[in-house]
């Protein structure tokens, strides 16, 4: 399992595409309406928005993903680091920020490699 993290627009998906030769058909790009990850794809991107969907539904994204962890072992997972701003006033966004942190940590702990993209440049954290 490869986890790629970093801020918005830092080139995470571009890095995954070029390193693993991914095409659009290989990638699930999650949106706010994504309630489940698509385990038929090689790469799942914007896990932060999947997490937002789960938080709004009252669920815990880390728990849901860990329940299927064996089927994530061969995946490239991409998440956005949203942990470095001011604590949001909105309660849902506050819960989202914390749920994302738990999800990212849980995935990073189980990943074979963890990468962080900074201005398009990859840095291996694990």
């Amino acid at each position: 399992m490869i986890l790629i993290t970093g801020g918005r627009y830092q080139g995470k998906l571009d890095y995954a595409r070029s390193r693993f030769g991914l095409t659009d058909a290989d990638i699930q790009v999650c949106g706010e309406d994504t309630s489940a990850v698509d385990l038929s794809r090689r790469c799942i991107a914007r896990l932060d928005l999947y997490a937002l969907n789960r938080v709004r539904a009252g669920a815990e994204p880390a728990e849901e993903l860990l329940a299927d962890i064996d089927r994530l072992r061969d995946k490239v997972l991409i998440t956005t680091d949203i942990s470095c701003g001011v604590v949001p006033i909105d309660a849902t966004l506050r819960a989202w920020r914390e749920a994302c942190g738990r999800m990212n940590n849980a995935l990073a702990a189980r990943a074979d490699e963890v990468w962080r993209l900074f201005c398009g440049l990859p840095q291996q954290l694990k």
Partner: protein
Amino acid sequence: MSTFISGGCKNGKSFYAQRIAQQGGRPLYYIATMIPHDDEDQARIRRHRQERAGWGFETLECGRDILSCLDRADPRGSFLLDSVTALLSNEMFAPEGIHSDAHLALADDLAEFVRRAPNTVLVSDYIYSDATLYDELTEAYRAALAHIDRRLARCCDNVIEVVSGQILLHKGVLPL
């Protein structure tokens, strides 16, 4: 040698950038990018001037059309451009209206600037890791700045992240 620096607000980017620029040769130029709009901006400019006093910088005022300041300077000198963020804001939210694709020309201009004036230090702001759902315009600004950051990270010799005053090298060598 060109150096691109980014990182969070008040982490020590400008101080580190000033030190690098000062070792880059002479003449030593500070490109002042902020166009003041109110008393708060004027106070910030006064504070920045005081912080730079004694460093030996010649100030070049240039809030827009960044290549034009090379007409007034020796390109063999050492330049500190602080900040890319302000330049984008000036070009994107111009008095004559919003230029939503201003980042494309600005990225080209900054790459050309570094080509012509290779001893340049550029400072940007890392505004990509907060838990907020922004309006369309703010989101466009973030994407536009990231476009420029990534271009500069490709064309500069060194890429550095400053975190709590600590220096993290992403590309090249540490200038000091």
